[in-house]
């Protein structure tokens, strides 16, 4: 009888074989790194997040500081983006506005994520008349042009929210409720969340509906898992992928909507900072000082674009698709 020798594998082979991550997130991260636009977008997003956190410290001048010896200056070394008609440094104002944009983007996305998932999952799991009504509501919202609906709702929402802040001030006595910026933020959060939850709700509903039919869910029910367990341990994690893609592309839309509302004068107003506001102010002198419009405008466009790129790259990374022929 011949001796069978067992060939031990070398450490290099062992490392190689266990190197490649096999989880969904590991695969996705690797795929994401392949997309040049995605990596570029991610770089800008991280940079923007950093600015949002540190804006107050890295801004060279104060947001409202006026230098009457430097009115309407084009971009220069002292003022990298120039100054406006009353001598305020545009660069500092842009930095602080980025803070606003990111704050609005993130908070609204969180609200939309929670509300959209809850409503969508409820519609899919409960079914029946509840599902039909929820679909009608989502369809009605989705058919409206987004910015128009946002403007409409903000006109309607402003008086009640201002009453709310007034009564909050009366009941707690905190000075902060007197601040108009809080009112503006309240209106913007409410309006944008209201307008943006429907796409996510529809997505989650579709996902849960299709997941419900899959065998592994049936298997879970067969071994007696509770509905709660199935929902939290299986349904929600599987919805996370498309949900994250939708949210990251959606952040761009939210920031665009916020700046559009501020541009029109019904969003974040001075003394609050917003890119839309800066653009509106700059519009008055578009001919003589185009940098007052171009700088905040291009910054806004770049930020939105970066989020879109990241979302696109995430989409490609998270969805294993048959390559185009």
């Amino acid at each position, binding site marked *: 009888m011949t001796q069978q020798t067992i060939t031990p594998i070398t450490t290099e082979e062992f490392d190689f074989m266990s190197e490649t991550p096999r989880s969904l997130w590991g695969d996705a991260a690797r795929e994401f790194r392949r997309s040049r*636009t995605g990596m570029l977008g991610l770089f800008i997003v991280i940079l923007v997040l950093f600015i949002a956190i540190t804006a107050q410290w890295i801004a060279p001048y104060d947001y409202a500081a006026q230098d009457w010896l430097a009115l309407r200056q084009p971009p220069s070394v002292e003022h990298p983006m120039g100054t406006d008609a009353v001598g305020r440094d545009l660069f500092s104002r842009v930095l602080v506005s980025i803070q606003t944009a990111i704050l609005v983007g993130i908070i609204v996305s969180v609200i939309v994520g929670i509300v959209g998932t809850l409503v969508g999952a409820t519609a899919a799991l409960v079914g029946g008349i509840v599902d039909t009504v929820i679909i*009608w*509501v989502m*369809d*009605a*919202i989705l*058919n*409206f*042009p*987004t*910015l*128009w*609906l946002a*403007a*409409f*709702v*903000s*006109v*309607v929402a*402003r*008086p*009640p929210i201002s009453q709310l802040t007034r009564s909050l001030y009366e009941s707690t006595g905190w000075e902060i409720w007197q601040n108009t910026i809080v009112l503006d933020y309240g209106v913007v959060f409410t309006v944008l969340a209201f307008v943006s939850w429907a796409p996510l709700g529809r997505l989650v509903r579709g996902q849960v509906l299709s997941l419900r039919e899959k065998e592994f869910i049936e298997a879970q029910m067969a071994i007696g898992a509770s509905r709660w367990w199935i929902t939290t341990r299986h349904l929600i994690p599987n919805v996370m992928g498309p949900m994250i893609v939708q949210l990251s592309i959606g952040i*761009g839309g939210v920031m*665009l909507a916020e*700046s*559009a509302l501020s*541009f*029109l*004068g*019904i969003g974040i107003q001075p003394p609050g900072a917003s890119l*839309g506001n800066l*653009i*509106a102010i*700059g*519009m008055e002198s*578009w*001919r003589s000082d*185009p940098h007052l*419009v*171009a700088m*905040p*405008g*291009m910054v*806004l*466009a770049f930020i*939105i*674009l970066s989020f*879109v790129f990241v979302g696109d790259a995430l989409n490609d990374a998270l969805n294993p698709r048959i390559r*185009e*022929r």
Partner: protein
Amino acid sequence: MLRYIFQRILAIIPLVLFVTAFVFILGQYGASDLALSLTIQANGGDFDAEMYETFRNELGLDQPVLIRYQKFIENALQGDFGRSLVLPGSPEISAMIVNTLPISLQLGVAALIVLVLIAVPLGVVAAFTRNSLIDQFIVTSMTFLSAIPPFVLAPLALWFIVAELRAPLIGFGWHGFFSLDTILPAAVLAAAPMSGVLRFTRNSVIDVLSQDYVMAARARGLQKQHIIIGYVLKNAMTPVLTWLGISVGRLLSGSIFVEIVFGIPGFGSVAVTAFQAGDIQTVAATTLVSMVIIITVNLIVDLMYGIFDPRVRLGS
């Protein structure tokens, strides 16, 4: 065919009901706040119960909800939206809409023309040179262009064309559909939906190109142009049509900004004045009208789809 038309119309009835109910509810909510603020304004900062009642009656808030809804729909169908209590001079809202809507419609059509003339050929080119540098360049630059918000693109385009190139495309005010001044606002308006239409056209053409009947046509030796025009374009265009219909909503949103920047007295600028003044009546009226436009356009696109693609008609 008639049955299909009937089906589509039936399908949008709940949508129309819900949308009008939506606008109505929001409008009523705003109306009671409006009555309050008008009272306070007219009374020099004080609340007067009598005046409050008068305003409420004026805004129709004294009647039960369903009756109000019925009156709202009745009046809307007749085109009567009442008088705006907020705007100076209390103009009739329907007069404002009737005067400005044709201008915006013309601008919208001009924008659609620009959109189709630019995005569709580029989409076809991108599809044919798929994954090459040309393709990537077209898609990326179009994505970039569409990501620039319309209220940024408008002044930048204005500055670039007028101040730098000194071209006679001033674009301020409205000089009619066929004037040179319409090109710039229409182009800026078309910029936002352009990347969507481009991508859709590109994907649609790529889809069609991979179909068997195209391969069969090539095998039969048909000339390339003949294949492109006869088979590829015809079949690729139908989904694009749907997307164009969807884009009308974005055009409406964009017209708000384009009209302000270019000083065009259109429907969008009426809406903006109303938004800024907190005039809920005009806001509700304009929103209702724009929703009617969008739903009508989508319905027409659906019907056209039914005409072009028999598979849709005969049920799936």
